[in-house]
């Protein structure tokens, strides 16, 4: 079957997963308490008939089953429905927000992954030394502080008291900046939210890489490498790190998926106009179609990220291909 068959198998599995998610996704929001129409019109003077009319307009009068069928039908045309709250197609609302989130998440995650892996590998290699305990205790601390509470502290100190960084948003409102000036402004706004995400993920990567490194260093092939008379640095990079990074790559797949969903708190704290902030607003407004759409995007991004990692894995770990090759 080989690498190609392995890839096809993984892709089919991903498609099936997405289908299952669509179904679950639909049901979950219908089971949540709260009436969307009531949330739209909090005025008690609105009559029952008027509410009924609105329900019919959004198809909420149909039974659950009927709603699901029409949802699937529209979904197949790429129509995710109309946002109750913004009165615009859900797809437009979401696509407006995706770039901002990706910018924040991918930047933060890349930096965190890079630094976390280096420090984690170093700590594992220097196990039991001062370097190790310093890195380990610092990352445990970082890992235990939720990103949003670190965010609030950062806001208080650096934005409110010291006024080095802006309080919220992604750009300075009505600044009229373009080109390089605009990007500098975005970068300036991104510092604090990115930092609070980075700190949390660095902690995770350090702990993970360190643990994986310790496992690998106990393996017989490390001793074999020493018996060959290789330099310690060669053993570290070519034998230990190469093998220790395999589980780290797996977690990265999961992280990229969850990071898109997981920045809800950070985006809310910093009023970052991304998809996480959108979720917060949609929940507050009981905007079913929007929530459903956003969750679908989250789920698909998790599935896709895992698919990509699976495919990369098949490439970097020679043992995986054999797993898919069973005849």
């Amino acid at each position, binding site marked *: 079957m080989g690498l190609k068959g392995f890839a096809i198998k993984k892709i089919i599995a991903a498609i099936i997963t997405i289908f299952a998610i669509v179904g679950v996704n639909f049901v979950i929001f219908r089971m949540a308490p709260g009436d969307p129409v009531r949330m739209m019109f909090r005025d008690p003077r609105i009559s029952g008939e008027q509410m009924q009319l609105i329900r019919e307009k959004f198809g909420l009068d149909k039974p659950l089953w009927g709603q699901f069928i029409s949802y699937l039908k529209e979904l197949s045309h790429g129509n995710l429905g109309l946002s109750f709250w913004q009165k615009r197609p859900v797809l437009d609302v979401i696509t407006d927000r995706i770039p901002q989130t990706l910018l924040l998440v991918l930047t933060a995650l890349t930096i965190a992954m890079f630094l976390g892996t280096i420090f984690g590998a170093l700590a594992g290699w220097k196990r039991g030394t001062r370097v190790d305990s310093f890195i380990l205790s610092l990352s445990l601390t970082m890992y235990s502080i939720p990103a949003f509470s670190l965010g609030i502290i950062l806001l208080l100190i650096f934005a409110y008291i010291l006024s080095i960084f802006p309080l919220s948003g992604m750009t300075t409102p009505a600044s009229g900046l373009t080109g390089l000036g605009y990007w500098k402004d975005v970068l300036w706004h991104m510092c604090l939210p990115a930092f609070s995400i980075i700190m949390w993920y660095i902690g995770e990567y350090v702990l993970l890489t360190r643990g994986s490194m310790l496992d690998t260093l106990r393996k017989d092939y490390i001793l*074999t490498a020493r*018996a060959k008379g290789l330099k310690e640095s060669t053993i570290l990079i070519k034998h230990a790190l*190469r093998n220790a990074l395999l589980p780290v790559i797996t977690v990265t797949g999961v992280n990229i998926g969850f990071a898109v969903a997981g920045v809800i708190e950070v985006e809310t704290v910093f009023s970052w106009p991304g998809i996480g902030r959108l979720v917060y607003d949609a929940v507050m407004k009981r905007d079913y179609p929007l929530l459903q759409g956003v969750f679908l995007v989250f789920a698909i991004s998790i599935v896709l990220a895992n698919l990509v990692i699976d495919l990369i894995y098949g490439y970097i770990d020679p043992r995986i291909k054999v797993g898919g090759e069973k005849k």
Partner: protein
Amino acid sequence: MALLEVKNLKVYYFTRKGTAKAVDGVNFSIDKNETLGLIGESGCGKTTTALSLMRFVTPPGRIVKGKIVFDGRDIISMSNEEIRLLRGKEISIVFQAAQNALNPVMTIEKQISEGILEHESITEDEALERAKNQLNLVGIGDERSKSYPHELSGGMKQRVMIAMATVCNPKLLILDEPVTGLDVIVQRQILSLINDLRAKLHLTIVIIAHDLSVIAETCDKIAVMYAGKIVEQASAVSLYKNPMHPYSQALIKAYPSIKGEKKKLKSIPGAPPRLVNPPPGCKFHPRCSYAADICRKKEPIIREKEGHLVACHLN
């Protein structure tokens, strides 16, 4: 002059339960082109002895005393860099359990060539070519050289390990239980491969095993270890035919012979002594059927008798 001389080597493991004297005053020497067999039960200190020869003893273990003189240089007092340059180039080892001793994400030719590149100034292509030749020498064809370890059988992995250890023409090769865990036919193949290489590459070998009959043919002389000490040492033939120490006798009786008459196999009663608090006197006395009073009180010293070196009061 002997290629390797081990004098009064003591390697202790400092554990929470106490000090385990894994190797407790071992002496032996090997001449060039000679093969020494080191046999004994699990935990008798034979692997620790082998690891000490390459200075692979790690905490909580430590070489506390003794001298290991290899080719005129003392291994114990060498700097880390000196010992690194020695490893793989002048002294090589094939570890027990070759199944996990290869890096799973590297092709076997890469793993072999990397050792050559470390010790010799040649190009990568030349090193790969040498690796392929070496694989051919141990009976693995060119078409296999780009394989990953998981694509090979146990016997083939052991061949790769042997190829890797001999690729720089080491002066001394250590084989730690080279055939343990392989089936009998593969054992036979690996042993004849070792004999083959020994002749072709003029190797000096230390071979470790727990089964005397397996290595008797391969070795020139054999040392029997018990509880961290060598209890008997003699030429392979003499030791096999005429073992003097009760423990050597028991070891030989514990394994079946194909050619001779059918005898009932005798197991050695009891278990190997704990190394933390060994029994007083001769360490074998609780399991020895000839044990006398003196054995319980005084530790025997190793003496020469009829060409054997033997540590037993009764001989």
